[in-house]
């Protein structure tokens, strides 16, 4: 299915007995094929906003449109079958094998057996699990990271246009988490779904998002911008504080040495660190500071292509967007 646009229009949700709204007049457009990450402190209504899309939470006011259709007008069950849903503990069914878990929605949709089997194989390969080795296992036999991969494969099974991910990597150790983030980005380049992703981790948000939506307590939108713009120019004090004092460094993490205009290789002095072009600017700065140097050599495929100084890094940050 083609990626669908998601639009929140003044979407509002209040839980009975609470004065503050959980989601307060949220207006937000997620373009087809875009990854929108909702971040914010706890109580900012991130998960509630996400669940408004597949109607696990019902709107009180305003509207949410998926592919131009109001979710209010759609049958909740049919809507959910057309939306991939990934949650923190993966939510795999313990009594079903990995293959049967992935086959859940295609079975509900009444696909033929042979089509389901082929799709399950395809998806397990897509998330990096050997279908023959992992298909017959039960969830209890998997590691946390493997469970999340299966959860993702299951969400993609019926080829939904929209993917909702509620802190999917929140319970994983940092190394597994970083690997899955990278794999998710690679996968997203391939499948191009419209993704709404919830996290409370700013680094995860800026790493994965095409656009980040920062929500504040009470469920209102504080800022909606691409990661670089967000980190360069927080809309207000709340956003700046939420992003953290190291937002300059976080911004550096978004770019790699290979992405920036380099200085001549001749400026490199003996003792300057030599770094591969895939290194993030953040790690490059860290390497320079660790060595007490103000410049590093940038190598690509074994040959030095150029160099970069700390001064230059500062200039790069200043160039696009500042306050």
């Amino acid at each position, binding site marked *: 299915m083609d990626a669908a646009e998601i639009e929140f229009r003044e979407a509002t949700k209040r839980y009975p007995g609470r004065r503050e709204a959980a989601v307060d007049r949220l207006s937000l457009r997620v373009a087809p094929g875009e990854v929108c990450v909702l971040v914010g402190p706890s109580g900012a209504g991130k998960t509630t906003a996400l669940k408004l899309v597949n109607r696990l939470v019902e709107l009180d006011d305003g509207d949410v449109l998926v592919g131009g259709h109001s979710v209010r007008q759609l049958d*909740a069950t*049919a809507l*959910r*079958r057309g939306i991939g849903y990934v949650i923190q503990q*993966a939510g795999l*069914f*313990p009594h079903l094998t990995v293959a049967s878990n992935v086959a*859940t929605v295609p079975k509900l949709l009444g696909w033929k057996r042979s089509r389901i089997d082929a799709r399950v194989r395809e998806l397990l390969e897509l998330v990096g699990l050997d279908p023959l080795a992992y298909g017959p296992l039960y969830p209890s036999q998997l590691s946390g990271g493997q469970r999340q991969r299966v*959860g993702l494969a299951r969400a993609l099974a019926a080829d939904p246009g929209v993917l909702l991910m509620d802190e999917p990597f929140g319970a994983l150790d940092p190394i597994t988490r970083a690997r899955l983030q990278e794999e998710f980005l690679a996968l997203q380049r391939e499948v191009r779904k419209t993704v709404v992703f919830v996290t409370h981790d700013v680094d995860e948000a800026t790493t994965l998002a095409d656009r980040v939506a920062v929500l504040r307590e009470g469920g209102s939108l504080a800022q909606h911008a691409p990661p670089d713009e967000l980190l360069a120019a927080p809309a207000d004090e709340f956003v700046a504080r939420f992003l953290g004092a190291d937002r300059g460094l976080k911004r550096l993490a978004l770019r790699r040495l290979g992405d920036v205009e380099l200085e001549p290789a001749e400026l490199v002095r003996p003792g300057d660190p030599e770094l591969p072009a895939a290194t993030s600017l953040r790690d490059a700065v860290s390497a320079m500071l660790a060595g007490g140097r103000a410049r590093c050599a940038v190598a690509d495929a074994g040959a030095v292509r150029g160099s970069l100084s700390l001064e230059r890094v500062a200039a790069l940050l200043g160039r696009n967007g500042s306050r």
Partner: protein
Amino acid sequence: MNRPVIPDFGRGSDCVRENRLFCGEWVRDNWEGVLLPRLVEHVELTLVAVAVGFAIAFAAAVAAHRLPRLETPFAFVAAFLYTIPSLALFQLLVPVTGLTVATVQVALVGYTLLVLFRNVLTGLQSVPPDALEAARGMGLTRRQTLWRVELPLALPALLAGVRIAVVTTVSLATVAAFVLPRGLGQPIFDALREYFTTKLIAAGVLAVLLAVAADALLVLAGRAVTPWTRARRPA
């Protein structure tokens, strides 16, 4: 005869005539005529009681799972039935349902309800919340969630309940002979009246063996239908 033997067993070996503790040959001679038919009746009594009890308890547990305010009244009724002494219950039922199999079954079914209701409900309540959340999010209806997710995951607890229900019913069904000459309870009642220990022991041992065999069968069946509970991480 120089000493009074009550009752007079007439024919039979010395062992039987002298009413020694246990006479193997009596068992051999009476297997087809007495013991086997009673054993079959006993199995029938147990199967019907547990099946009917399960149907009622299952429906009640599913209802209480959906509507939690039903749990307390249902559990109260089941517990109340369970506490009535069995002989008293039979006696109470006879004026209503007569000396029939219905009397026996009402009582036996009543005693299965508590453990079956409790176990089915506990099983349903033990389903991991994240699995339910995922089921809902993927567009399973409530009915589909019940049959495809909740009930399979409740199976281990449910089967544990059925095991207890079967074993207790096998034991309790011997008392049914108080009302009706059926099941292994009948030779036991006879033997108590006749002071005939062989019959008592034979029927008693058969009841115990039946309970053990049924339990073992249920364990095996349970293992066959819940393969995920034994899945181990590959080395």
